[in-house]
């Protein structure tokens, strides 16, 4: 069964169903109790009638009366048309039969002088209406001249069926009306109850990139809707932060591009303003190439980051000996390290499941950073460690302390703890962002920790 999509309709239907079921159950219970009570009263009446006949038969001369003046007896006995009385002799001979309706009812076995309700038997009239019948023993006549007879008293309850049917109709009607009322009330109440939700929807519809600061009124919402309002607000917080970061990033990007482009424009125009020597033109072109290479690298890095964020970079993971990878990258940076009298130490071991080219790129970016910032003459430690199937690679160096507030932002794009430094050395400001994107692609994470003058960047790979 397909539930309707409207919550109001759905709840109304369920609620109505519940009310209809409860009303019907109550009706059925009341009806049963009512029927039982009526039957009990009828039975008591029937037994009373039996008792009356017994007493009547016990009077002196009753036998005579019965034989000679049956109509008088009949008149005495019958009051109601539907009262049927039959008196049988011990040998089964019919002594009297008062049966105005001409009904044919069964004769139950005699239940003694004082039958209880248990002895009463149900029968059915020719028209299919219910009847009750009971048989008891009696003494015909008084004094010494008595004979044992069987008295059968029966009744047909023609009016009962009609009454019960009417009662049933009333109960069904009441149940139907209460279900209808429940449906109307439920729909009205739900409409009212869901008003705050409509309010939230209207509020949410107002949220635009420029109005991200808008928040839903979580405190004023009904308690059931508070978690939703809070969740939506938390989502807006994250969106706002992400949006701010993106706009900041675009602004940074424009700024990062502006400097080299300004240089290219300016120096080219200055050169063209006068006739220069070939050497001057060559120097200009070479300088332009350097700026352009930096721009090209930046574009390349931006594209890589964008693709990594969209998960468009296909990884070709292979198990790699971690120490070998550290050594390869250390080898690459050996020349640069020597110029600053830095030692590169590769330690540890283990296996790492990674895309070799991307792992090298990440490690190279970390090492490039370390070689730039390490104190001259110090040692840069590249360490690999496998613990419980997880491999962590780290690059640590001793250098100028990075203040704690900067640490958290080191992986942000274009973030520079020391803005004066990296510009001149051709860094794009995207190296560490690329490291962190590469780790995200691998399902791992990158981290940084500072211990005094020693700063350690760690790449944590997930368990293989």
């Amino acid at each position, binding site marked *: 069964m397909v539930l309707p999509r409207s919550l109001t309709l759905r709840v109304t239907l369920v609620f109505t169903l519940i009310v209809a079921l409860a009303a019907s159950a109550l009706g059925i219970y009341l009806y049963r109790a009512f029927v039982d009570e009526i039957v009990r009263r009828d039975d008591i009446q029937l037994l009373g009638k039996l008792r009356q006949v017994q007493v009547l038969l016990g009077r002196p001369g009753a036998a005579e009366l019965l034989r000679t003046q049956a109509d008088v007896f009949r008149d005495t006995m019958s009051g109601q048309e539907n009262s049927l009385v039959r008196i049988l002799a011990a040998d089964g001979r019919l002594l009297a039969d008062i049966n105005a309706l001409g009904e044919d009812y069964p004769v139950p076995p005699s239940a003694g002088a004082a039958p209880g309700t248990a002895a009463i038997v149900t029968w059915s009239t020719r028209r299919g209406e219910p009847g009750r019948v009971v048989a008891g023993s009696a003494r015909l006549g008084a004094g010494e001249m008595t004979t044992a007879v069987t008295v059968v008293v029966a009744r047909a309850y023609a009016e009962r069926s009609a009454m019960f049917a009417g009662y049933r109709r009333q109960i069904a009607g009441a149940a139907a009306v209460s279900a209808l009322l429940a449906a109307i009330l439920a729909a009205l109440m739900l409409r009212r109850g869901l008003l705050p939700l409509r309010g939230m929807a209207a509020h949410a519809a107002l949220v635009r990139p420029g109005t991200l600061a808008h928040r839903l009124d979580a405190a004023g919402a009904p308690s059931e809707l508070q978690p939703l309002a809070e969740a939506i607000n938390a989502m807006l917080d994250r969106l706002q932060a992400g949006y701010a970061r993106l706009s900041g990033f675009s602004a940074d990007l424009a700024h990062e591009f502006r400097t080299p482009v300004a240089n290219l424009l300016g120096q080219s125009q200055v050169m063209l303003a006068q006739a220069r020597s070939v050497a001057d033109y*060559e*120097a200009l*072109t*070479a*300088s*332009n*190439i*350097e700026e*352009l*290479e930096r721009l*090209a*690298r930046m*574009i*390349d890095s931006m*594209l890589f980051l964008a693709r990594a964020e969209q998960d468009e970079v*296909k990884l070709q993971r292979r198990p790699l000996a971690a120490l070998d990878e550290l050594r*390869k990258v250390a*080898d*690459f*940076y*050996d*020349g*640069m390290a*020597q*110029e600053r009298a830095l030692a590169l130490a590769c330690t540890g071991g283990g296996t790492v499941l990674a895309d070799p*080219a991307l792992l*090298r*790129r990440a490690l*190279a970016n970390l090492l*490039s950073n370390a070689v730039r910032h390490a104190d001259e003459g110090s040692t840069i430690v590249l360490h690999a460690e496998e613990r419980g199937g997880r491999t962590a690679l780290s690059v640590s160096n001793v250098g100028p302390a990075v203040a704690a507030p900067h640490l958290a932002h080191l992986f942000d794009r274009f973030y520079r703890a020391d803005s004066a430094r990296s510009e001149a*050395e*051709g*860094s794009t400001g995207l190296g560490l962002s690329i490291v962190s994107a590469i780790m995200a692609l691998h399902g791992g994470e990158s981290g940084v920790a500072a211990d005094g003058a020693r700063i350690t960047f760690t790449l944590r790979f997930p368990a293989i």
Partner: protein
Amino acid sequence: MAILVIEDEPKTGDYLQRGLSESGFAVRLARNGRDGLFIAREEEIELVVLDVMLPRMDGWQVLEALRADPATEGIPVLFLTARDEVEDRVRGLELGADDYLVKPFAFVELLARIRTLLRRGPVREDELIRIGDMEIDVLRRRVRRGGLPITLTAQEFALLHLLARRQGQVLSRSLIASQVWDMNFDSDTNVIDAAVRRLRRKIDDPFPDKLIHTRRGMGYVCDTEAVR
């Protein structure tokens, strides 16, 4: 025999034509795919540099047409793409291209690729390379200059061997990083500069005639004189 450049972007086409001509190649330039295909069929072409994004007939169609014609199917094709997408590269290579470059690329990189495809240019696979008074014994990994032995580390030797094998060719830093250290991404240019400085201290500094020359903005070249 000429190199056919099929490129619609005017500045790119012009500088490719000029640069390749000055590097000693005869160059034919086509500004659209149809003209390019016509030239490839009618003239003696030894290599095609093909831009993928072309008006009227795109690079892929040109490539298919080249490969479908028996007269042109053997011509090596190097395609240029601005989109660094794996699918693009795979498509190009599947259609029968021989190599590709992603824009923006360094001109020396293009030159190196073209020379490799044509198996021309001085790539020396000799066991003994002599440049000026320097002798490189490739098998024994020994270097002598002016008769004096020079001790090099494995990386220094690999770098010198690469430069010497391609004597007279300017090698870009990214090519050097890729060939010597297997670092296939645009890394710090300073790394290669430092490595070359270190090599020079052993190979060039003690001698008056320099063999390793810097071509500013382009890369490094090894030769007896700083040829242009």
